């Protein structure tokens, strides 16, 4: 067994598999285990699994301790370069300072997480002087190395990472922080708006984007422009905002390029791999978990996908029976995305799904329908919001009866 990625999802899958008696090797490209949690020093992790609000490192350490107790083999500073899938054996090629590492295994769990979108991907004009960062880079710089990026900071993006970084920079002694974003209101979680932005009176400008970065060697500022509801710049509203640092926090994208190269099917909505109810990709015996599948707001949910994949690996290795025809699961009109994408195994376990709504609603019915539009199941959610990935359980016999399942908000 090889697990690629030593973040919380990879660690959780490894621990479960080792407990089941499989021989697991974890490959991690960073110098230590723990994934992005090691730089997320704020609290709020583990409220579902442990009913406590741990910090990122504390949560990750729970699993790292387990990995050490069980003596799971792991390599850090080891980057997986390629994976070949044969009919039963899989070949993993990884690089580290000792050289090239070749491993063959019967099943693989990918847990490579997500990466940040860059300013290049959102078409920002102007120059590229020093002082332009992504939020994750800054989080690492400040929390791990203790270096502040600048004195007057502009943050682009009203998501969680941007807000968390804004608060942190302010507390650590940056003189001025301003946040701009194209939406009418922050896209991130309500808790972060309250405790990161409003608590500290951090100034912010909705419906505003960076038109141009200004500066030769170092950032001198940015030209800001107002946008309309379609995020189209409104001419004549340009203003110059002086600052020495611009931090982009404009979204996360699953690290799925390796899987794509291997021929795994990719969902254009999540930009992660298409998976079945045990988080197996379209390549048999190749599993994908955590933020690689879709960006999870709760690490607890990411960890759940890892536990499910561990069950799936066992089924795969034991050659358990699959259905003649998989049942597709898909999001309806008001859902932006949903995983898993199909139910493929013949067993009795209820299906755990995660979805993100594209609308904000209080007391919202989530309705599942079969292929012909007949309702098979409904459940009431207190709130659904685009900012929150929701969890849903669907009874296996309901799925069995339907030829396909479409889930939507009503």
């Amino acid at each position: 067994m090889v697990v690629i990625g030593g973040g919380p999802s990879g660690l959780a899958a490894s621990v479960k598999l080792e407990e089941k008696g499989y021989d697991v090797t974890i490959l991690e490209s960073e110098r230590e285990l723990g994934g992005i949690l090691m730089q997320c020093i704020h609290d709020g992790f583990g409220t579902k699994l442990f009913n406590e609000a741990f910090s990122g490192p504390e949560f990750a350490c729970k699993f790292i301790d387990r990995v050490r107790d069980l003596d799971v083999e792991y390599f850090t500073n080891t980057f997986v370069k390629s994976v070949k899938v044969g009919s039963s054996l899989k070949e993993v090629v990884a690089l580290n300072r000792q050289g090239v590492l070749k491993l063959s295994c019967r099943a693989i769990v990918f847990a490579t997480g997500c990466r940040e979108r860059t300013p290049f991907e959102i078409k920002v004009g102007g120059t590229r002087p020093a002082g332009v960062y992504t939020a994750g880079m800054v989080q690492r710089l400040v929390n791990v190395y203790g270096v502040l990026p600048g004195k007057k900071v502009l943050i682009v993006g009203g998501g969680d990472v941007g807000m968390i970084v804004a608060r942190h920079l302010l507390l650590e002694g940056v003189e001025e922080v301003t946040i701009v974003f194209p939406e009418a209101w922050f896209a991130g979680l309500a808790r972060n708006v309250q405790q990161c932005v409003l608590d500290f009176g951090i100034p912010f400008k909705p419906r505003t984007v960076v038109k141009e970065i200004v500066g030769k060697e170092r950032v001198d500022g940015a030209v800001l422009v107002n946008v309309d509801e379609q995020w189209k710049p409104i001419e004549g509203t340009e203003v110059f905002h002086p600052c020495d640092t611009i931090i982009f926090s404009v979204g996360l994208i699953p690290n799925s390029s390796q899987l794509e190269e291997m021929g795994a099917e990719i969902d254009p909505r999540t930009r992660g791999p298409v998976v079945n109810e045990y988080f197996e990709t379209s390549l048999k015996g190749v599993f994908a978990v955590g933020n690689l599948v879709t960006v999870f707001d709760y690490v607890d949910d990411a960890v759940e996908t890892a536990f499910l994949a561990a069950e799936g690996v066992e089924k795969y290795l034991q050659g358990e029976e699959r259905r003649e025809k998989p049942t597709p699961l898909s999001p309806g009109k008001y859902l932006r995305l949903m995983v898993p994408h199909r139910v493929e195994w013949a067993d009795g376990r209820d299906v755990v799904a995660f979805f993100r709504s594209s609308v904000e609603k209080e007391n919202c019915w989530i309705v599942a329908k079969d292929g012909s539009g007949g309702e098979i199941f409904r459940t009431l959610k207190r709130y659904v919001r685009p900012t929150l990935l929701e969890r849903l359980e669907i009874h296996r016999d309901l799925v069995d009866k339907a030829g396909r399942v479409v889930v939507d908000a009503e």
Partner: protein
Amino acid sequence: MQSEVICVRCPKGCKVKVAFEGGSVTSVEGYGCLLGREYAVQEVVNPQRIVSTTVRVLKAPYQRLPVRTSRPVPKDKVREVVKALAGVTVEAPVKRGEVIVKNVAGTSVDVIAERDLESEGG
């Protein structure tokens, strides 16, 4: 009187309604778990926050050690806590949960290490 509080304890962000009369809380609604019930009552009576930051660490593979207050501190003390920690330097090895500063900024709350850090080379 009734206030609506957004629970900040986890990403769900439940809207909790707290009703109170003459200083005592009469009903709490809308929380997703007990952490949130506790939080919402606190937020109305005496708002508090967990403070997370980093301190300088020597002889470790990294320059900073993430730390946090072991319990929430009053909201208006957050900046003071961060200030009090600005000059603190510790030496590796450090164990997770180890107390780094006792009774920080007179809050009677301790600041603890969020992670283990082994000493460099050891």
